[in-house]
């Protein structure tokens, strides 16, 4: 199975997928750490794919989404964005809405706390 098919399968079979450097418990890059941190804090169930463990996936996911950087967040198979976009969406509440629209459970109070802390 090619990297592209593997990635397609992964984002189709899992509601929320974060392609990142490292793992959700041990991120290896500040940007990956921030996105994984937000998802962890908001109690979102997600699959973390460590691109450092597989260079085909690391290059393949950039091709798959036509996006040159890691991390990359996918919800219901759709590419949502990288660290900057997820940060902006968290602060604006768009991430809450995206999860609600896609039936992804998350902790609303936690999201409010993040916004309050960073306002």
């Amino acid at each position: 199975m090619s990297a592209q098919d593997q990635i397609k399968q992964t984002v189709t079979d899992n509601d929320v997928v974060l392609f990142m450097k490292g793992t959700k418990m041990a991120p290896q890059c500040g940007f990956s750490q921030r996105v994984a941190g937000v998802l962890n804090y908001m109690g979102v169930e997600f699959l973390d794919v460590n691109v450092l463990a597989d260079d085909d996936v690391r290059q393949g996911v950039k091709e798959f989404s036509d996006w040159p950087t890691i991390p990359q967040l996918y919800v219901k198979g759709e590419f949502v964005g990288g660290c900057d976009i997820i940060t902006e969406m968290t602060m604006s509440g768009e991430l809450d809405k995206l999860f609600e629209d896609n039936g992804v459970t998350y902790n609303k109070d936690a999201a409010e706390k993040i916004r309050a802390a960073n306002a």
Partner: protein
Amino acid sequence: MAMQAHEIENLLREAFPQASITVTDMAGDGNHFAAEVQDESFRGMNRVQQQRAVYAALKGKMDGADGELHALALTTKAPD
């Protein structure tokens, strides 16, 4: 091979001649920058489309094989 702020600005200026562009060196190591691009062409685009256009302007400098540019914090919008 690290990059300079003005190199990034030139690449962005080529793609967005009328845009207001600010590039800030975040760490002084030629590898960590922040860039804000405000351009009329972004109006009506969502964030992913806007940022894809900016990454395209950087022609593979971003985390590429020789990874000149490791980190670029991006803010994009259409002028208010």
